[in-house]
């Protein structure tokens, strides 16, 4: 009887304590207000332990990263959440897809708003990933030991563009249909060379690429299903996997890149939080088998602050800023939805998504060079940079390295000016085909405004290498020039190209079709 009532009392007591115990079981460390509990807060949490326990003060400066990597991740997460929500209603089948978009737009509760956020976050992700790459480049953060992470980053750039591009088709409206038709034809551009060589019959990589992409000879239901699969399944998985590697490598490569003399550059800390001071109570037995420099035993990592809360507030702030930007844009600007896709009535001009309009401008000169040749050169060049630039001066600094900011400024001018000059020339005077109508295609493939521009940039970069006796200087110049060229071509393709890809000062001047 007594034992029984005891057990009941204990049961009641346990029931009363259950909520607190559930919380304690989930968060073992309690409130993080000592240095140790802050540390355990970080590594005791599956999501946070990707961060190091302490963060260098240099990394927390806004000027170091501008939060672009986190903003990209935030945009990815936003598209992930909104994308899953849209999948509730989206039907990946021609015509039905369009009708389901109409329903999302008009009758699904919050549907239009969520689609707008999805669209803006996707665009934001493209922008931030490019800016993030530029940041990494200009602070020379690709250098050893971060070369591989630079390559992962390039893969992530490609996956981001792929995600955005595959999403472009899904509304199945005229805009989508013809943009993807253009995009798929860019994929087919190696045909220009194989045709000119007369080997397309036996060797047709361009046709194969297009066939793999579309699953048919035109954009149709097969293409829609493939794009849907890529958009909601394959590419997000690849992106997530690559991101995991990317983040993990940041830690393994020693955090963010810092200048060698970082201590002198940072203002004195106010010492709000203590750092490791006590004598170690353990020895690093593993030191013998760890390669590289042995961890300094006896004093903690200096100039660092606990990641909790310093890093996390910064990250959350960037995350919410990104959310804010996407939500605000979604509120004021609706994602476009044109007429139902009609394979018989081409859009004129049919334009690819904006980030491919620079490519489309190049493709207008030569399909092969614009679609494959020049992008391949650029990608290979970008991938090789960390392995060619083995210098050390300027790591972690903006425009670091020989030449510095003045060189970047001059390169930007040259990059923009030569791109504008080439565009102006071809718009005013035409090109080889207009002068010599019978000229062989291979000549145009080799010599066209795109390759000329590339040659100008390459020559300038070579000159910089000699002038400053530094690969880094050449890379700075070349990267800046290409950014400038990309900007000019994209702007021309977006705003100044009308029906039949002719030049117009404004869409108001377009002839009616």
């Amino acid at each position: 009887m007594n034992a029984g009532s005891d057990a009941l009392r204990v049961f009641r007591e346990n029931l009363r304590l259950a909520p607190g115990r559930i919380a304690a079981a989930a968060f073992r460390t309690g409130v993080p207000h000592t240095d140790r509990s802050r540390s355990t807060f970080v590594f005791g949490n599956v999501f946070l332990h990707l961060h190091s326990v302490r963060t260098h003060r240099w990394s927390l400066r806004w000027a170091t990263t501008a939060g672009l990597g986190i903003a990209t991740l935030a945009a990815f997460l936003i598209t992930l959440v909104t994308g899953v929500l849209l999948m509730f209603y989206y039907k990946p089948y021609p015509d039905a897809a369009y009708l389901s978009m109409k329903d999302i737009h008009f009758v699904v509760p919050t549907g239009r708003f969520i689609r707008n956020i999805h669209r803006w976050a996707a665009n934001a992700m493209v922008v931030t990933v490019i800016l993030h790459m530029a940041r990494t480049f200009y602070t020379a953060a690709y250098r050893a030991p971060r070369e591989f992470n630079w390559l992962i980053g390039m893969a992530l750039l490609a996956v981001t563009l792929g995600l955005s591009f595959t999403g472009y088709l899904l509304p199945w409206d005229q805009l989508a249909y013809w943009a993807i038709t253009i995009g798929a034809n860019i994929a087919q551009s190696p045909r220009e060379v194989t045709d000119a060589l007369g080997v397309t019959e036996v060797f047709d990589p361009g046709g194969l690429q297009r066939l793999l992409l579309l699953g048919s000879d035109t954009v149709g239901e097969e293409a829609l299903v493939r794009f849907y699969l890529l958009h909601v399944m394959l590419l997000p998985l690849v992106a997530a996997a690559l991101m995991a590697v990317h983040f993990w490598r940041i830690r393994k490569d020693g955090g963010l890149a810092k200048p060698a003399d970082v201590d002198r550059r940072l203002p004195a800390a106010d010492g709000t939080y203590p750092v490791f001071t006590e004598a170690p109570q353990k020895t690093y037995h593993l030191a013998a088998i760890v390669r590289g420099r042995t961890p300094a035993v006896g004093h903690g990592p200096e100039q660092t602050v606990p990641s909790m809360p310093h890093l996390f507030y910064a990250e959350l702030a960037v995350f919410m800023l990104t959310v804010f930007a996407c939500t605000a844009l979604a509120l004021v600007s609706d994602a476009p939805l044109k007429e139902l896709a009609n394979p018989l009535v081409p859009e004129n001009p049919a334009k690819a998504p904006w980030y491919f309009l620079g490519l489309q401008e190049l493709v207008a000169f030569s399909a092969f060079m614009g679609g494959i040749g020049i992008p391949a050169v650029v990608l290979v060049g970008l991938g090789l940079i960390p392995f060619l630039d083995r210098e050390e001066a300027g790591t972690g600094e903006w425009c670091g390295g020989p030449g510095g900011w003045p060189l970047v400024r001059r390169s930007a001018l040259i990059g923009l000016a030569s791109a504008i000059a080439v565009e102006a020339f071809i718009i005013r005077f035409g090109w080889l085909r207009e002068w010599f109508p019978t000229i062989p295609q291979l000549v145009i493939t080799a010599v066209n405004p795109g390759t000329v521009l590339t040659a100008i940039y390459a020559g300038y970069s070579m000159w910089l290498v000699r002038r400053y006796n530094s690969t880094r200087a050449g890379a700075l110049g070349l990267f800046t020039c290409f950014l400038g060229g990309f900007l000019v071509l994209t702007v021309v393709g977006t705003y100044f190209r009308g029906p039949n890809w002719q030049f117009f000062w404004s869409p108001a001047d377009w002839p009616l079709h």
Partner: protein
Amino acid sequence: MASLDRNKWLLLASSVGVLVLLVVAAVRENVLLEWRQVQAEVRLDGQPVPVHLRQVVNQTLGVADRCVSCHVSMAPGEQNATGPAQRSHPNVVHDPADFGCTACHGGQGRATLKDDAHGTVHFWPEPMLPVRSTEAGCGTCHATAGIPRREVLDGWSATFERLDCRACHRMDGRGGTIRPDGGGMEGPDLTRVGLTGYRADWHDAHITRAAADTAAPWRTSWRSVSEADRADVERFLATRVAMPSLVSAKSTFFASGCLGCHKVSGVGGDDGPDLTRAGEKDPGRADFAAVAGDRTLDNWFDQHTRTPTSVVVGSQMPALRLTDREVDDLTLFTLSLRRRDVPGSYLPRDRMRVSRFAEREFASDGATVFGAFCAGCHGRDGLGLRAAGVATFPSVANPDFLAVAPDALLSETIRRGRPGRRMRAWSDDTGVRAADIAAIVAYLRTAAATPAPIDSKPARWVQGDPAEGGRLFERTCAGCHGPKGEGLDAPALNNPVLQAAATDTFFVETIARGRRGTGMVGFAESSPIHPTLTRADIESIVSFIRTWGVQP
């Protein structure tokens, strides 16, 4: 630490910002939407209606029309709703609760915002039909067969009016009598009688009833109807299919000769664009630079029909000098040329008869066939057309011409055309059948009250001197017909079809008697303004003319 505080402030500001934006979005979605505000004012039996999205769904037709979210009184079962802009749908054949709205009216059914729904936005190719052109929507599915040309239809209609059938019968919203002591119309509504049919012995039944019934209408209004009038009335009733404006517009189309240049459903010439689906033209893709008023297709067609070249630069279509009513009719008809994929169970019988059983939308009588195919060039009355800058179109109803032209010449010319000239061959691919050609010829003869000439001579009998004829031709004829008979202002005489089809008698008689109302004078008659030719001279000229033709 300063940077930590700055980040906290940033987090606070952006979080509050997001919260504010979300609240704005929530208010916009849950309060400010137009249909919510409309429905808040709607009352049903004095009670507010529940505010939610309403729609008409017909899965077979692929319709999901949310129009009724604002037009609540047209929603299924809510006909009695009252409130601003609430009006119940007129009683029509198709139940809006079943067919939805867009199947007939166009517009964007899935939309829930006014501009999007009415389709006046940039990216909706099929905006709502304007109210005055509502019947154009019927053309999406329906194709009433056997509509005669305007004059004929008007004649039937006049007979119907003259017989005062509307004293008892209501038709197209007019007529019918309410009994003085209350009660319904005296006779049944005839608006849809072309679809529902009527008893074949209606005339006898009326007579019997009139004899038995002592009610005033039967005494005062009913009279027996003559055989001819009865035929007119019956043909008129066959055209009453609840779309009077469209039938009327069609009859104007078949009187204006549009099929001479345009194809509709595979019938017609091909000088102009095929009009089969012209009513689906996307206003977003039409050039409105020279069109006054709203950017509607209705407006575009209206102006284009009046003065084609002012709307489409370089258009070959002549300005047809139409009355306002005819322009309205042609605009309505062109707008009605639209299609929609409908499942077989919804395909109406009239369309089926036209598309599967080769019935034609125009009547097969000569007047209508002439009106539909020929009137554009030869004039509605067949008396030819003169327009500035265009070669004169010959007057085929000229009695002088018909008096000498054998039927074979007429039908051969229609069948084979005049190669090289505007007159095309009306072969099978234009939809003109042999019976139609015979009907046209018969119509011309009746209209001009000129029977076919009786000619006992063979087709070729002239034995003149071609050399002498050549000299005479040069002097007398070449001025109008050209030195080689190629035809300048006057018809070309060297045309192979003319040479093959015309008899010598036709040439001789035409030269001798001339053709009143045209530039061709009778050369056998003495006149101060031209030389008088003897019978022998004329035969020589005909022999000369014959040297251009292929000898049989």
